[in-house]
């Protein structure tokens, strides 16, 4: 189990570049993949696909509703259509298209949500995506996958493409540490126990997995042994591992770069409330908008620091 995590973490890699490379590799292996963009391809690095496969790339302009609808037309004609724009736009401006045609219409479109969470940090709250998981998770048939490092992007994107039905692939913009060794083999829909422990379980998703690892290591120094489970798939939720860990450790903390309402923390709270009630605390953004600033500083200031995770673990253990 421990060999899934690099010690120390690998050199930081830019996540959007990792996505561009993964998309290019997917384009080489699957000729049925088409990529659409709302004119941000040099932001999200889908330009790498465009350069290699110009005949399978469509820039529809700054028109997110049309982006999703044109993707629907291509997907209904047999293509795996991957639509690309900023994460917040899928879950706000284009969400009616997503609900009606991807979800109700059960269409094989994948939404690659770039710059999710606070990762477009300097563009500020208009560009932050902190409610996207909550909004999209509520839609029947939608699946949600959040990779936590560059290797996870490369290993999950082909699974997202192979999944039948709509998927939201939530992507960070920035440089993040390489967490995983080559032994990391994520399977969509299944949580992964990264670190073992019996005192509490941390369920983490996205790039905050690295901070959660740091929290577990620091807690170990004071004799608290927290378990860390990576939930790269927020929906469908792996209820089996959630209930099992809750029962075995008796306390739960959720960690995500998102509002604490309706995301991973919401999903796990709902599940445990019905199946295995234990003390739980949600780490994330506490129902407010953030501000402009350096990414790491924003994560700290808005409730997602290593210290906040550590405190949350201590709290849930004290509530047992």
């Amino acid at each position, binding site marked *: 189990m421990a060999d899934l995590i690099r010690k120390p973490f690998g050199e930081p890699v830019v996540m959007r570049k990792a996505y561009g490379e993964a998309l290019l590799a997917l384009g080489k292996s699957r000729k049925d993949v*088409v990529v659409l963009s709302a004119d941000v391809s040099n932001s999200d690095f889908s330009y790498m696909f465009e350069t290699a496969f110009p*005949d*399978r790339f*469509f820039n*529809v*302009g700054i*028109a997110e*509703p*049309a982006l999703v*609808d*044109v*993707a*629907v*037309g*291509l*997907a*209904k*004609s*047999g*293509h795996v*259509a991957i639509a690309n724009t900023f994460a917040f736009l899928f879950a706000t401006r284009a969400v*009616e*298209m997503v609900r*009606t*045609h991807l979800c*109700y*219409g*059960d*269409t094989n479109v994948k939404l690659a949500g770039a710059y999710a969470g606070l990762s477009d940090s300097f563009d500020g709250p208009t560009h932050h995506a902190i409610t996207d998981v909550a909004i999209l998770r509520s839609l029947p048939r939608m699946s949600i996958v959040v990779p936590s490092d560059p290797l996870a992007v490369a290993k999950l994107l082909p699974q997202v493409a192979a999944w039948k039905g709509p998927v939201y692939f939530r992507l960070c913009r920035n440089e993040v540490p390489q967490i995983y060794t080559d032994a990391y083999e994520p399977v969509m829909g299944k949580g992964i126990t990264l670190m073992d422990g019996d005192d509490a379980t941390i369920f983490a998703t996205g790039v905050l997995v690295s901070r959660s690892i740091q929290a577990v290591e620091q807690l170990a120094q004071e004799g608290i042994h927290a378990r860390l489970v990576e939930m790269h798939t927020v929906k469908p939720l792996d209820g089996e591992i959630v209930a099992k860990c809750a029962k075995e450790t008796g306390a739960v903390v959720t960690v995500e770069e998102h509002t604490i309402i309706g995301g991973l923390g919401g999903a796990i709270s709902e599940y445990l409330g019905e199946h295995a009630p234990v003390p739980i605390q949600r780490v994330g953004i506490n129902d407010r908008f953030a501000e402009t600033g350096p990414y790491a500083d924003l994560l700290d200031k808005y409730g997602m620091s290593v210290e906040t995770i550590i405190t949350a673990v201590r709290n849930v253990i004290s509530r047992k």
Partner: protein
Amino acid sequence: MDSPIESAARVYPYGVNHSPEMIADLSRRAYEYRRQVLRMVYNRKTGHIGGAFSAAEYLTALYFHQLRLDPANPGWEDRDRLIFSKGHACAMLYTVLAHRGYFPVEELMTFRGFNSRLQGHPEPQKTPGIEVPAGPLGHGVAIGAGMALAARMAGSRRKIYVVLGDGEINSGVIWEGMMVAAKFQLDNLKVILDYNGVQQTGPTTRVMPTEPIVDKWASFNWHVMEIHGHNMAEVLNALDGADEIHGRPVVIIARTTKGKGVSFMENNSYWHGSPPTDEQFAAADYELKKGVEQWRI
């Protein structure tokens, strides 16, 4: 209640020769299909009559002449696609699909009922022959553009038809889709704009004026045709003519009448979504029967 519609309606092969007999037959059937829609909405006490009646002629022309499709194989890859974007008027689409052989005509009376395959608005998973959901307005052009791109990539001659309402074009995504289709020069995409001039709460001239409609579409770099949408000969000729336009998407602006065929329903927004009373049903059916008879030769 008499049911004048034959269950296996004649299909006229694709071609530019439209005989007077063919025009009369399709025109007569458009009125018969209106009678069917009237029965469906009257039976369930819910549904949209006005926009269904304005769609009768062009849907009849499309399904019994223009579209290349196979009801026995609804998923045929090279079929022409029809996106019925003005989904609220689906009672007419269901009626035409049933008579084209997609499902039993008897099933039409389950429209909007509990456990029916014929949902209040189109749902592709339930109803054979439906391509995409519709109801929330505005999606048709952009989805059609995606399908047209896919047809081009596949090297297929299949064509993509989109039926829009005129109230529907209030929606911004319509214009996004128009720009996408023009950018990619999608001449395999044909839009029929049902320009009946009335939307839910009143005339379009008052709710949201759309004129000059020809200039609007032309300025978006579409080829524009304008026809009398209840004149079967004009409808058939326009559908043929649209196939001869190259390098640009085509819009056929079909000037129609909401509630066409029933005097007290015509041009009246009340009949956008209201069911008839017993007396109104009888009076409407009487007028529609006269509409059928005028096309008997």
